[in-house]
């Protein structure tokens, strides 16, 4: 059985972190609605990934870490029970530009969704996972994914129209 040296392991992990962080940060931002909270979430995720690194297969490292991230989000809710979804995201001023407005509103509306609906919407429509893969990642049935996606989409359809036609 071969042991990897600690320095080698850290170098490989640092390279992985550099590559994976942008993708993880985007997912975390959609899940949290805040860039600062997203950064905290990604950092906590990567810390756990480091602790588990000897057991993570390189070819699935990003998918595995993304899975940690989604569950880390769940953990965060459990541990900070005073945190509640808010109707608006306080860390960014409401933009005037039409495109920025749509971005702002989609994040704001996401934030108002129940946690599972928000996860399903992000995994299904942002991560582009299939219903089956979304269900597997969240540990719920495909039917629950369909239901959550349907309800989440209904809520997000409140997004305003843009010059390109918006969301109907």
């Amino acid at each position, binding site marked *: *059985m*071969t*042991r990897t040296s600690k320095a080698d392991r850290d170098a490989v*992990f*640092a390279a992985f*972190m*550099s590559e994976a*962080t942008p*993708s993880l*940060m*985007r*997912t975390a*931002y959609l899940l949290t609605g805040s*860039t600062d909270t997203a*950064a905290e979430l*990604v*950092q906590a995720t*990567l*810390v*756990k*990934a*480091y*602790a*588990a690194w*000897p*057991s*993570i297969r390189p070819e699935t490292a*990003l*998918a*595995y870490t993304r*899975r*940690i991230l989604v569950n880390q989000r*769940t953990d965060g809710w*459990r*541990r900070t029970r005073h945190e509640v979804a808010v109707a608006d995201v306080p860390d*960014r001023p409401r933009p005037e530009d039409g495109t*920025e407005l*749509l*971005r702002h509103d*989609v994040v704001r509306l*996401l934030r108002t969704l129940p946690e599972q609906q928000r996860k399903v*919407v992000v995994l299904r*429509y*942002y*991560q*582009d996972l299939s*219903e*089956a*893969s979304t269900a597997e990642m*969240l*540990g*719920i*049935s495909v039917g*629950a994914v369909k239901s959550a996606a349907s309800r989440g989409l209904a809520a997000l*359809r409140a*997004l305003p129209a843009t010059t390109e*036609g*918006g*969301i*109907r």
Partner: protein
Amino acid sequence: MSTESERAIATALREAADGAAPAYPALDSTAVITAGRALVRRRRMVRSGAVLAVAAVVLGGAGIVKGQHDRAADRLPADRKDIGVVSVTLGQAQPYTATDGTVIDGPSRVVVTVDTSAVDRPNVGFYALAGDGSRTLMANETVDLDRPGPLVLTDPDEPHLTFGVVPSTARALLVGGPDSSGDVPRDLRRIPGTQLEAFVSVTAIMTTEAVVSGLTWLDATGRVSTMSTGEDGVTELPTATVDGVTTYVDPNFGWGAFVATGAAVTALPEQLTPTDFTDPLRVAPTAQGSGTTWLVQALVDPAAESPSISFTSSCTQVGSTALARLSDGTRSVLQARCTTSQGADTIVASLAYTVDGTPRTMLPVAPYVVAVPAEGWLTVPAVGAEHPAEGLSVAQTVDPPTAPGQWVSFRRLLFDGQGLDTAASFPLAPGADATFQLGDGGGYDMAYGLTRSRPTAVTPVGSPASRFAAGTAWATVKVPGTDLWAVAISLTGTDDHSPHQLVSVEWTDASGQHHTTPAG
């Protein structure tokens, strides 16, 4: 999914995530690694303390509220006694050695308690036992002792442990993990005074409730039941029992087996991936002494007869080759054992059987992946939108050359190129010249197909006939090592989610012959 609003949501999400990118704070890899090392050290210190605990500690947890995870508040003095609580310490399992040689302590320090003070809904708690005898709540949940159902729990701070309860009739248990490979529990113990058995499982990878796919267990009557995480129902699975081996097939996750050796029963890890029901052959070591005994199993046609297995020269068959039909009659299990005195890379040379007098043979073949060039692919206008550039790969995961057909899995690249997602998986039956099926296309509905000759023109036919009027696109690739061509077709006009949208596919082969293949 393919509605216009779904595509618009996907676009809005991507623009929102990308638009915020300049505001994302930079992360310091040194800080992350330092914190990660600290986390590893903290876990090792807890574990080394646990080694000092030499006796089972009977402690209660009355009044603990579900979801309460403040570990400091849960830490109780060692001498506290609670009334109405039964508990058991789960085993003295040997440490688990991870793939890199890291030793992970077994679950000997885990204590499970049942608080019976609430008679109708007792509280089951799992505690980490520390060296000073104090314990820390990892997770708890309420269960109904009159109708004991399975329960799986995890603790984010103990990511290598999975624990829970199953009905006390369980003889052996498999905890489904990532890739559905499963993990064999380290201990399964009856909780005195209840109809529950508690289990604790140690895995080499981190476990979370979302990672654990479910539980599968064998009861004393030979039945195999399964429960998927997040669902309440328990499903009984079709089984076949041959020579002390109970094999089951779970259409959602794969197939596995419980192997009885004397009074002990062990669970073999499940063989298949959750979505690819494509691996009909399994080889697993089941006993080691002077040599290794290998159990070889294959799922074959339910009408199979006259089974035989040819082993490589390194493995000598023990006993005869057996055949047993699954209880639901959908397949049969072909099974044999062989022994090796030394390590062997390959055990099985071939399997053979007959169906209605026709001989069939299976050969183990390594998987490989072929990428379909994505350039120009999926760029046709569709319902007023333009498909993004997406990639598609075709993976032939297993090739049993003659039966039941050549399975091909279609996996598409996720939009960010960071992974593959299985979109469809099916075989082309022997004698058939083509097959087409609807499959997942991420943001767009797709049809996937296999043809026996190279298609030069492909036209999907919808219901109604105008369904695909907005346009379609297709691509094909030869699946190496086979006589098959994999075809992927992007569809439009599937927004109404009505059934039977794809009626057939009209296609022309390289010789100019036209075909109409009904959609499967």
